[in-house]
């Protein structure tokens, strides 16, 4: 992809089939790139406006689930005049095609981009991952 091409707006996709959500608010699907190297799977997703403490990453039964919540209290006292995008939490799940070493998952957050490094090895127990 040439970096000199003018960027176009990517309309946010609303999350469908969000079975377990009980609040009426809308969730969005973060734009995600997935790349696989010899020994790891890299999942890179855009979650603008989310603080690292508001991200939950879980791997269970070969399913990777990510939930990232925006802090909308920052908008308190602000009256919208003109809008081009909506604001909401992000959630997305992926079925992992390879066994992932769940003890060795790395997560970093930079400029609203969450990068997960999932090392491929044998199966392991479900666990919760903290963001470094």
């Amino acid at each position, binding site marked *: 992809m*040439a970096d000199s091409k003018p960027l*176009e707006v*990517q309309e946010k996709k609303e999350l469908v089939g969000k079975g377990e959500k009980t609040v009426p608010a809308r969730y969005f699907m973060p734009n995600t790139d*997935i790349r696989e190297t010899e020994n790891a799977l890299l999942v890179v997703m855009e979650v603008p406006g989310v603080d690292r403490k508001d991200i939950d990453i879980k791997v269970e039964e070969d399913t990777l689930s990510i939930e990232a919540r925006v802090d909308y209290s920052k908008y308190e006292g602000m*009256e919208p005049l003109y809008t081009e995008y909506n604001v909401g939490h992000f959630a997305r799940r992926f079925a992992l095609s390879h066994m992932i070493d769940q003890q060795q998952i790395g997560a970093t957050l930079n*400029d609203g981009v969450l990068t997960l490094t999932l090392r491929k090895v044998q199966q392991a127990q479900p666990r919760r991952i903290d963001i470094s």
Partner: protein
Amino acid sequence: MAYLYSDPFETLFQFQNALDQLRSSNWLQASPSGGGSYPPMNVFRKGEDIVLVIEVPGVRKSDLRIDAKGNTIRIAGTKTVEQADKASVHRVERRGGQFDRAITLPIEIDADRIKAECRDGILALHLPRAERDKPRAISVA
């Protein structure tokens, strides 16, 4: 309209509906000095000032350039999306490239007091309304 909600379960939903309703607002005008409509922005009024909230995930602060002249704000920059070397690609949804957008506000702003913050992929521009542009109360004699 002040958004102070009491019910935490409804707050976000009401806010989202309010944002949706202003999708067709013609409050903001495009300016001929820029091109394209990236990055997407929301405009809010906070007291007498204007706040632009712009989504720029993956854009480094050092790759952003913001200029102000009169009522026109120009936001330009480059979004870099790392490429995979020796990796097979499963999914590509993120796009990188250059952007240059200019907008003209229908009110006068004090260009010397503009503040810009960029955090977690959100660029916020605080545009104070120019003192001479503020409405004055007129007392009835």
